[in-house]
């Protein structure tokens, strides 16, 4: 058996969660928080030794302490548990807003993903990794260096996340590789138009409202109402409440009324255990159920600095794309990322976007002089599918199981001949559409 006959490893590293598994499967093997708990009880190891020479005799002791600290780390849920249980480890989130910020912990994170989670030999598999649409080519080189030099992978492809999300829709509905991907993750929200598998770079829009902000808002609402949640876990509880109980309403005024009329039906309860004392506590979950997701559609309720609703940003994004692609883009708006999972999110988005589009068509028709042909109505379609949560990973899984994938990969031999710069570009390949 050689690497070409084994399934490729597909890893989608997100700000919040990493999705990893093997190509050809429908689901990732693991969805694990992108976090590393590092042992920083050896204070010397984190600092470059440039400033002021360390005490001479101590050097060896310090060095080996540093070595031990470098080996003493955990990732994912284990990292979270470890940092809760003791103070010797501190958490490091290697990815921020979709970009790798700390390459040391990123490399360790990958190491654990490969050896301890997937338990595969990286020399045996081609790898598909993902990156945000705003990632700089230098970053790609860096990823390439780590993958080829540390892990000796035989082949590597770095795909743009939204393109993969679009490919995910490909098997569930019959669509082309043209569409707009609305990827709302934990730390980044991107609206990315794609035409024939190529990202229309100049039209990408990013908005500063993400899954983390929804959690933040729910957290704030619970706190303002004085709910009795132990502060050390209140953010985490807010996140879990969000994931379990939040939904998208069609109209907040009506929704407030519904809650007030029938609180027993709409108000939920949360029961937890205080980590310090072990005592039980409960809290109510009320308006935040629909107010949380509302910040995408009415951002001013959350933030005064950014007030453009998601549907307006999507419309602007499409309007700024080449005119011959616009109809196709409106027709295929694909959701991806955990924060699009709120119930009825796609319905609300479709309705609000359609309102804008219809208003524009009406306005332009009313300006016509009789005899001109009227503008055709524009079809607006927000596509939702069951694998939305890990659409990027699934798209990667589908693409990496085609024969074309292996040809599009950069190989170790190429890397050795031409260097890391080959990783800057990753060709779009057939099979993507």
């Amino acid at each position: 058996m050689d690497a070409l006959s084994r399934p490729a490893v597909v890893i989608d590293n997100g700000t919040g969660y990493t999705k990893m598994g093997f190509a050809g499967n429908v689901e990732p093997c693991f969805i694990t928080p992108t976090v590393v708990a590092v042992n920083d009880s050896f204070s010397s190891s984190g600092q470059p030794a440039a400033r002021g020479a360390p005490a001479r005799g101590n050097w060896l002791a310090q060095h080996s302490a540093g070595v031990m600290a470098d080996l003493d780390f955990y990732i994912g849920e284990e990292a979270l548990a470890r940092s809760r249980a003791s103070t010797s480890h501190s958490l490091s989130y290697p990815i921020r807003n979709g970009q790798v910020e700390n390459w040391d912990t990123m490399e360790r994170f990958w190491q654990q993903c490969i050896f301890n989670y997937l338990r595969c030999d990286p020399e045996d598999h081609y790898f598909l990794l993902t990156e945000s649409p705003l990632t700089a080519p230098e970053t790609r080189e860096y990823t390439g260096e780590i993958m080829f030099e540390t892990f000796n992978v035989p082949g590597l492809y770095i795909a743009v996340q939204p393109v993969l999300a679009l490919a995910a829709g490909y098997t569930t509905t019959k669509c082309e590789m043209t569409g707009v991907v609305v990827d709302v993750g934990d730390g980044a929200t991107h609206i990315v138009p794609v035409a024939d598998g190529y990202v229309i770079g100049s039209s990408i829009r990013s908005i500063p409202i993400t899954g983390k902000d929804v959690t933040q808002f729910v957290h704030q609402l619970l706190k303002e109402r004085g709910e009795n949640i132990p502060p050390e876990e209140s953010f985490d509880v807010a996140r879990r409440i969000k994931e379990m109980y939040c939904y998208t309403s069609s109209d907040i005024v009506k929704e407030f009324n519904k809650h007030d009329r029938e609180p027993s039906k709409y108000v939920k309860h949360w029961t937890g255990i205080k980590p310090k004392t072990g005592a039980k506590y409960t809290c109510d979950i009320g308006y935040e159920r629909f107010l949380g997701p509302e910040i995408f559609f009415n951002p001013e309720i959350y933030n005064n600095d950014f007030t453009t609703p998601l549907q307006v940003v999507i419309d602007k994004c499409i309007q700024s794309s080449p005119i011959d692609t616009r109809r196709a883009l409106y027709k295929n708006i694909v959701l991806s990322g955990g924060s699009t999972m709120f119930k009825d999110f796609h319905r609300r988005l479709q309705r609000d976007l359609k309102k804008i589009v219809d208003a524009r068509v009406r306005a332009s028709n009313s300006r016509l002089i009789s005899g001109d042909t009227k503008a055709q109505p524009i079809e607006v379609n927000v596509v939702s599918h069951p694998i939305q949560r890990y659409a990027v990973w699934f798209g990667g899984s589908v693409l990496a199981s085609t024969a074309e994938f292996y040809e599009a990969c950069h190989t170790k031999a190429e890397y050795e001949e031409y260097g890391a710069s080959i990783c800057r570009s990753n060709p779009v390949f057939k099979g993507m559409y």
Partner: protein
Amino acid sequence: MILLQSPSRFLLQILQDRVLSGEKGIDIDCHTVEFDDVRYHIQFSMRNPKVMVLSVALPLPPPEAILYDGLPLGAIEAIKAAYGPVVQILDPPKDGFDLTMKINLTKLPLDEEQRNAILTQIASIREVVLGAPLKLLLKHLASKAVAPNVDKLVALVHRPNESFFLAPQADKVTIVYPMRFQDSIDIVLATSFLQEFVEARRTAALNNVPSCMWSPAPPLELKGVSADALNANAGFVTFVVYPRHVEGKKLDRTVWNLLTFHAYVSYHVKCSEGFMHTRMRRRVESLIQALDQAKSDAEKLKKLVHGGSFKRLSLKNEVDSRF
């Protein structure tokens, strides 16, 4: 930290999820591959949500290793002993696999601890099957005997097309690994790691572990083995295991560690490479800091002289965009 665990994390997770998920279940059909080409095919069907069909493919056996019905010596017995009524072996196995088992989760013990112990055992199927002959031989060693009908030198599957060798005697078992690596840097790192490994064994604190040697040429025990099985590029590692290393609970641990020795070394080599990169990155960062410091001092001076009238290339910006 750097040791591999015997149970597959993925198998264990799927099993535990399924046990806890109540009656409803979804179809699952997935393939995974572990190191050394051990492949799993996991199936659950909606009709029978509490029955998992698990197929396992083993590494391609080298010609010198002897199999029985496609499985290592004693594997079937080991499966029956480990899982009892929970597992039923299907014959023949699924196409492309060496073993297919039906795992009936309704037959698990009710006690949570016992149940988890069995689930962990199922997730360790790799050790149960591939480790069966090793375990058999070492069990005899524990009772200071040689297993009956066993050759003087036994070849066991270690990795695809690679074996490791055992010379069983009543009071000790000698185990030899020909070590092979693909990448040239790995060969160098692995060779020096193995020499250090042997060196570390000599230090006082480790007197109770099996003795261990490294040699560039095949040791005497391997006399008569075909040249193909002996073309190692990172030398040969020999362990001598005594009864005290395999008594009681130590046996399973010893079996697993011996079974995955190559993976252990390879994992270690990769970690060292990552470790060196981390060091290199820190070094570069501190050099750049020093340079920047020097440069900004110099710039301050220049500004005084030239009034900042010409554009200077900023090293810092260039480097920032890279890190």
